[in-house]
C-alpha cells in the first residue's frame, strides 16, 4: 500500500517554502510562536551541535495564529527528551520521520521531574557547585512552577532564563 502521509509536518504551503522536508529525524511542530530557540536550548541541542537543524519561527498557522517549527535530521528524540519542552510550549507535537514518512506523532506531556536542563536560581544551592550531580526539579501541579529537589527553591516565572 502506498503511504500518502504528507512529508513531516509541512501541512501548510508557507511552511514547505520555508523549511525543506527531512528524510529521517524529528519534527517538533506547533511550538508557540517565538519559542523555537528556547525549545532547542531546553533539548540541549543549542550551541555546538552536530545535528542538522531547521528552524522556522512565527510561521502563520490556522489554529495558533503563529507557530514555530524545529526539524532535526537523523536523530529521533525520545518522548522523555521532548516532554521537557511542554513546560514552555505545551501544545507542541512530535513527529518521528523515517524515509520522509511520519511514523509516529504525539503531543507532549508535562513531566513530573526535570533533570539537568534547568539551573537552580539559588546561588547557595549545592547544584551550583562542582559536585557530580545534575540539577533536578519537581514540576509543581497546576502550573505553579518548578521546585529544586535539593534546596527547595521554586521557579515560578521566567523559566526560560534558567534553562541551561
Amino acid at each position, binding site marked *: 500500500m502506498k503511504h500518502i502521509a504528507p512529508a513531516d509536518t509541512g501541512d501548510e504551503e508557507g511552511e514547505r517554502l520555508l523549511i525543506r522536508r527531512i528524510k529521517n529525524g524529528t519534527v517538533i511542530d506547533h511550538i508557540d510562536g517565538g519559542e523555537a530557540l528556547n525549545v532547542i536550548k531546553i533539548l540541549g541541542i543549542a550551541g555546538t551541535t552536530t545535528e542538522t537543524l531547521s528552524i522556522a519561527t512565527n510561521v502563520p498557522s490556522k489554529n495558533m495564529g503563529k507557530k514555530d517549527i524545529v526539524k532535526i535530521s537523523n536523530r529521533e528524540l525520545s518522548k522523555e527528551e521532548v516532554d521537557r519542552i511542554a513546560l514552555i510550549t505545551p501544545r507542541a507535537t512530535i513527529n518521528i520521520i523515517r524515509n520522509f514518512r511520519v511514523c509516529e506523532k504525539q503531543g507532549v506531556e508535562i513531566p513530573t521531574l526535570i533533570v539537568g536542563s534547568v539551573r537552580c536560581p539559588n546561588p547557595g544551592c*549545592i547544584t551550583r557547585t562542582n*559536585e557530580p550531580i545534575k540539577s533536578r526539579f519537581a514540576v509543581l501541579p497546576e502550573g505553579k512552577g518548578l521546585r529544586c*529537589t535539593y534546596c527547595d*527553591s521554586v521557579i*515560578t516565572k521566567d523559566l526560560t532564563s534558567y534553562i541551561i
Partner: protein
Amino acid sequence: MSFESAMARLGGSSISVSSVEACSMAKGETLADTIRVVSGYADAIVIRHPKEGAARLAAEFATVPVINAGDGAGQHPSQTLLDLYTIRQSMPIDGIDVALVGDLRYGRTAHSLASALSLYGVRLHTISPPGLELPPSLAEGLMEKGMEIINHTDIGEVINDVDVLYVTRIQRERFPDSTSYFNVASSYRITPELLAGAKKHLVVLHPLPRVDEIDPRLDASPHARYFEQSKNGVPVRMAMLLDVMG
C-alpha cells in the same frame, strides 16, 4: 557538639571534621566523594554544610544513614525535633499560637520549625525586618497545607496572645552598615518589660547562640526556656542516632 555528646552517651564514638581544611575537600575533593569515603569509616553521617541541599546530596551518595544538621539557609530538622520536644514539655502543641521572630529568610531553624508546626494546626505569627521575611515559596506551601500565617511588624502586636515566642538571631552581615543593624536589632530585642502582659505559660525559645536578641535579664524568668531547649538537644539527638542505627 550536641551530636558528639549524644553519640558518646550512647557508648559510641565520633569522628569530627569541623572544617574544610581538615579533610580532602581542601584538596578539591567533591562532597560526593568525601561522603562515599566517610561512609566506609562510620555507621552514620551527621552533616552540617554551608550549601543548601548538601544533606540531600550526601544522602544520595552515602551508604550509611545521613542526618541533616543544617544546610546553609535551608533546613535544620534535628533542631526542630528538640524545639518540638521542648514545647511539648510545657503544653500540647496542637492549635497553639507560635511567633517566629528575627531573620526568617535565612534562618534555617525557622524554616524547619514552621514546616513541622504546620502538622499541628498551629497559628503562626511572623515578625521580621523587611527583606528577612519567611521565603515566599515556603510560606505559600504552608498556607496551602492549611496553616494560618499572620505577619506582624511589631512584636508588641502579638506578644500577649502567643504561647511560644521563638527568637532567631538577626545577622549583622545582612545589613549594609552597623547603624542599620543596631537600629533593627534593638527593635526586635526581647526584654522582661516586653513580656509583662504575656500569657503565664508563654515559653521563649532560641536555637542559640544569641547575640543581642534576648536581654540577659530574661534568663531568670520562668518564660525563658532556651537553655533547657539546648540541653534537650542531647537526648533528642541520642534518639535520632538510635533510630537510624538501631
